[in-house]
Each structure stands twice: as structure tokens, then as C-alpha cells.
């Protein structure tokens, strides 16, 4: 004990540092251990995706994504819809002439196109480059039609922010972290 005291201050400091290092190392190991034991730390990555069944098409996907044009796009479940000529997602609610003039279409960017298949069916295609994720067509479709149009995060555009900016403001809490195998929540399969 008395020998310890006689040691030079440098040695004493070194001794404290060693103790500190052991302590810090221990605490890191402890934290890692706690995390590891509390979790099956999964090798899989997580992605953000919209649950189309809870989505209320509030329009915030368009405005709140950190990308200049939102990574949220409109998808169309071909097998779900009846393709009527007067489509609530394609035309504005009180449309007069069923043509593609600006005053008649629901989509503000003209991203939805359709092709006549056979009476009375149409095939709808969405140009993802034009779609800005505003969800107007989805709202129209869910209110008047089968709900075959729905919003999804397009995964190759999504930057996978650590916390999704849209999820923070989504009033319906429809945006969740999902695993790779359910990177899309499509209505076709539901």
C-alpha cells in the first residue's frame, strides 16, 4: 500500500487508465451482450413499406418524402379491378366527357394511362416516373371502385432513411418497417 503511494503520478495515472479501459471494455461487451441477448439480431435488412389497407390517402406521402419527388408511387392491382369506363381513380368525380383532357383526369401529372381491352374492360398502367404519390387516384378508386389502385414505396427509389420522414407524419400509422420478403404489400395477392 505504501509502495503504491510512492509510485510516480504518471504510473498512477496509467493504473487508473488501465482500470478505466477495462471498465469501458466491459461496459461495451455488456451492452453488446444485452443487445444480442435481447434480440435475434437478424441478418436481414429492414425496409419501409405502406400497408395499403390502413392507408387513408391523406396526401402526405407526396409532400413529406425527403426526395424531391416522393419514392411513394401508385400501384395497380390488375386482378382486382373491373376496369369500367367510368373509373373513379381515372376520372374526376363529376366528369362530363370521358376523354383524356386535363379537366377530366384525376391524376395531376397524367401518370395513369389506359388501354381498351374489350367491352367494358380497360387495362391501366401507371408511369412511375410521372407519379408523385399524391394518392388522389387511390382515394377516388377506394371511394368508388374496388380499391385496386394503392400506394407503395418503390424500393429502388427509397433511400431507406433510418427513420422514414413520411412515417413520422402518417396519420394512419400505415408505414412500417418490413423485411425483404415482404418489401411490397401488394393487393393482388390479398
Amino acid at each position, binding site marked *: 500500500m505504501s509502495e503504491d503511494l510512492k509510485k510516480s503520478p504518471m504510473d498512477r495515472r496509467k493504473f487508473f487508465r488501465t482500470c478505466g479501459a477495462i471498465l469501458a471494455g466491459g461496459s461495451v461487451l455488456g451492452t453488446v451482450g444485452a443487445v444480442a441477448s435481447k434480440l435475434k439480431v437478424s441478418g436481414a435488412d429492414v425496409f419501409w413499406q405502406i400497408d395499403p389497407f390502413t392507408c*387513408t390517402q391523406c396526401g402526405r406521402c407526396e409532400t413529406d418524402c425527403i426526395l*424531391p419527388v416522393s419514392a411513394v408511387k401508385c400501384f395497380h392491382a390488375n386482378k382486382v379491378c373491373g376496369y369500367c369506363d367510368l373509373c373513379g381513380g381515372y376520372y*374526376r*368525380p*363529376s*366528369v*362530363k366527357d370521358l376523354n383524356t*383532357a*386535363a*379537366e377530366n383526369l384525376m391524376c*395531376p*401529372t397524367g401518370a395513369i394511362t389506359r388501354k381498351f381491352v374489350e367491352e367494358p374492360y380497360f387495362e391501366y398502367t401507371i408511369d412511375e416516373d410521372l407519379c*408523385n404519390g*399524391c394518392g388522389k387516384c387511390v382515394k377516388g378508386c*377506394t*371511394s368508388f371502385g374496388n*380499391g385496386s389502385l394503392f400506394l407503395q414505396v418503390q424500393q429502388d427509389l427509397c433511400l431507406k432513411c433510418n427513420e422514414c420522414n413520411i412515417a413520422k407524419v402518417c396519420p394512419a400509422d400505415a408505414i412500417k418497417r418490413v423485411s425483404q420478403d415482404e418489401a411490397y404489400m401488394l393487393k393482388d395477392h390479398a
Partner: protein
Amino acid sequence: MKQKIYRNIAIVTAIFMLVVAIMLGFSYYQMQKVSPLQTDVMETLKQMNESQSDNSELQQQIRELDLIARKAYFVQEHQLKTGTMILIGMAVALCICLNLYYKETKNLPEKDMDPIDDWMAKSKARKYIQWGAVGLMLAGVAYLVLSNVSLGSKDGSTPEEELLAEAGGDEAAVAAAGDSIAVEEVDSVQTADEASDSLPIPKLTYNAFRGNNSSASSAARNIPTSWDLKAKKNVLWQSAIPKHGYNSPVVNGRNVYLTGADNSARELYCFDVYTGELKWTAKADKISGSPSTMPKVNADTGLAASTVATNGKQVCAIFATGDVLCVDTEGKRLWAKNLGLPDNHYGYASSLLIYGNELIIQYQNNSNAKIMALNVANGNQMWSISPKDKIAWSSPIIATLGGKPALVVMGNPAVAAYNPSNGAELWRVDCMSGEVGSSPASSGGVVFAASEYAKCIAIDGASGETLWEVSDYLPECSSLAATSNLVFCATSYGMVCAYDAKTGEVKKEHDLSTPFYSSPVIVEGKVYLFSNSGKAYVFSASDFSLLNAFETGEKTFATPAFTDEMMIVRTDKSLYCVKKG
């Protein structure tokens, strides 16, 4: 020399960057502000186009504007992108120049270095930290104290304010009760002079399920006691109703209101009381929050079981989706909202009631059983209470109890009275059980309530004291009607009876062997009642003797509506008007 060049390049780049940054900022601000693709102008123009008949000029204008907007959007986007790139490039240049400029002048001590007094610095740092921490803590404490003080003062002032408000409200209510109950049948008739023909606007109103205040009575006179639908005897008109519904018609002025719904649409109809012509249809669609999937409902309840309510200016309807729609007498939507999908295994069925400027909704579902009042003018909630009651399908009434109007609600397990202006509970009697679908009645300050799975009870309206209880015959869907002497009751197993209002003793009973869902209404000393099969019964209201009974030929589940010399009956598929002549 070289240094100077670097310095000058750096300065020029910095100035350029500043200019570009300002421009970019401005451009961004503009883009944020106008968001070219969704200008209000565009939306207004589109709406104008929709409300007008073909206006090719306007359409042309929209198309041009749309094109310009898109161009502007892409040009601006392009500008923003290029600007950012230029900015980054310049930043790199600036960094390089600055580095080169300072390269030779390393961070050398320009003059003899001041020896840093380590201890002095530490002491100062300690001081800063201490003061900073104390300052932050004080700020925190001040914030906490202030927020608590404001809370405290709020708490302190509320009781007095509430008392004042209550007193004021009650006075007003008493004053109103004095004249409104006497003249209410006349005063709220719409005065709009819309009658193109010379027919008078009926003066009597029948504003809700079972009449004004849901009182199960009407002051109508000269109502026939027999009619024949096929021979059109004593029948003024008969019209088809577009969509099915179990709700009952209400009448105000020349308008008869009722609703119908199926999985594709929910609609409020207005018929002309003299002609039976469908004047307009208001759709309860595009209501934000409205479920896209229709809730599962029992076929006996349907999506439109709730009767509408009106006050002569506004007409309000509610559907099993939880959608509330309010329109004016022309059918123009004033407001609409969704109250949240009712968790109801049969389907939401309680009817609406308007009291003053309040639309009262008994919203008692499996989860979240509430009674609420919305401002009938704008749909904003005025008050809402969540009494400890379970699901019920009963409808509220306004009764005069102890000289004041009171909201009487029959739920499970309580029959309770509330102050209709703020929802404050006046009394509560736990006496019901099972599925409560029947609605209460009131006469002479006494509340009568009965339900098949419980009992029939009479409650003193002033004290909330139980006067008597019996369980001889009990209604399931049909509601009670009461005079000062008798309480009328129709059951779903074919028995109808009249209880003594004072004792509960059965004064008279009839075994009619046909189920009743429709409710009895007291008119002109007579009780009108329809069986499900469509048989009409007319009883004397003084001794409950059967005056007349005959088949109308159409299934009837709704309760009829009465106005000047006319009775409006909704059958399974149609609506008809009974009038002498």
C-alpha cells in the same frame, strides 16, 4: 502573385456562390409556395367546369393552364438541379483555392504565443458550466412552475364558470321551455315560399323519429282511420323509394325526409308531401374517414336503420357506416363527417334528434359507447359523454322533466336523463339488460321505458326514483307511447297492451298474433300502429279499445309520420300518404 490569384478566384467564387444560392433559395421558395401542379386556381377552374354545362372556352383554358403548370414544374425542377450542381462545383473550387491560398501560411504563431494558462481556462470552463447548468435548471423549473400554474388557475376557475354556465343555460332552457314546447309544432316550419301551387305549407312538423322530440305523439287532425292502397281510397299518393331502409319518414313543411342505403350508396331522400314526387336525393359519399368497406349488418337492421332529424333548416342523417350527413332543405350538403366505424354486430340503428342547435347522437356501440351533441350548423362537437353503458339500438328523446327539458336515453343497463345543453347527468337508473332496442316515452314528468329482455319501468323524471316495475308484456323493437293515463306497448310476439301509467297494472291487452317492429303514435285521441305484415290497427287512446284493423297489403316496419290532415307511411318498398278524400 500566385497567392493573389488564388485569393481573387476564391472571392469571386464566393460571391458567385452567394448569388446562385440566393437564386436557388428564391426558386425553391416559389416552387414550394405555388406547387405548380396543384394550384387552387386550377382546382377552382375544374370545379367551375364541373358545375357548368359544357363550356369549351373554360375547358380550353384549363388545358392551357395545365400545360403551362407542367412546363413550369419541370423547368423549375431542372433549374433547381442545375443550380445545386453549379453550387457544389463552386464550393469545391472555393475549397481548393482557399487551401492553396493558405498553403504557404501555415498556422504559425504570428506573434509570441500567449502561454495558455491551463488552470485559468479550466476555472473559467467550470464557471461557465456551473452557470450554464444553473441557468438551464432555473429555466426548466420556471417552465414547470409556469405550466403548472396555468393548469392550476384553469382548475380553480372552472367550477365557478361551470356553475355560472349551467345556471345561465338552465334559465335559458326554462325560458325556452315555456314557449317552445307550447308552440314548437308551429314555429320551426320552414318559411321559404317555394310552393309554386296554391297548396298551403303544412304547419305541423314531425321533425324526428316518432315526432318532435321523439314524443310518440302528434297534434295532427282529421287523419282517416281506414284507407285502401289498391283502390286508392283515402290515399293521396304512393311512390317508390329508391333504396331500402328501416328508418321512418319525418315531415317538415312540404318536405318528407327519409334515407335508404345499400352497399353501393347511402342516400337521403326528400319527397313532396302533397305529390309524393322525389324532390332531391343527397348522397352521403366522399366523406373523409368513411370506411371503404361496408360494415357487416344484420338484414333486419340494414345500413339505414336510423331515422333522420330536421329543424326546418337543416336535415341530418346517419348511416351504419358512422357517416353523418347534414344538408339544407334543397339537398345541398352543409357538412358531413364520419364518427368512426360503429362496432355494432347488428348495425347502428339509433335515430337522430335535434335540440336547439345540437344534433344529439346516441352512439352506443360495442367499443366506445358515447352520447354526443354536434353543432347542427357545422358538425363540430359541442359535448360528448361516455356513460358506463354497453351497446344499445335505442333512440334518445327530449322529455319535460320537472319543468325543464331533459334528454332521456335508454341504454344497457341504464335509463338516464341528461341536461341536453351540456350532457351533465341528471339521474341514472340501472334497470335494463340484454339488447335494448326500444325507445322510452314520457308523459306528465314521468319516464317510461321497457325492453323485452328486462322489464317495463316508470321513473319519476324529477328525482329519478322508480315508481313501478312490471314485466307482463315487453317490446323488442317497438317503442312505448304514453298519455297521462296509459302506456302503450307492442311486442314482437303479437301481444299489445296498455299499462296504467300510475300503477303499471295491465288495463287492456289484445292478442293480435302478428309481430310489431313499428311503434305506436298517439294522434287525435287515437293510437296508430302497424304490424310487420302491414296490418294497420287504430285503438282508442283513452281505453285502448280496438277501433279498426285492416290489411294494407304492404309490409311495414317504419313508424308513420303525421302532419296537417296527412299521414305518411313507409312500407318495405314504398312511401304513401293517407289523407281524407
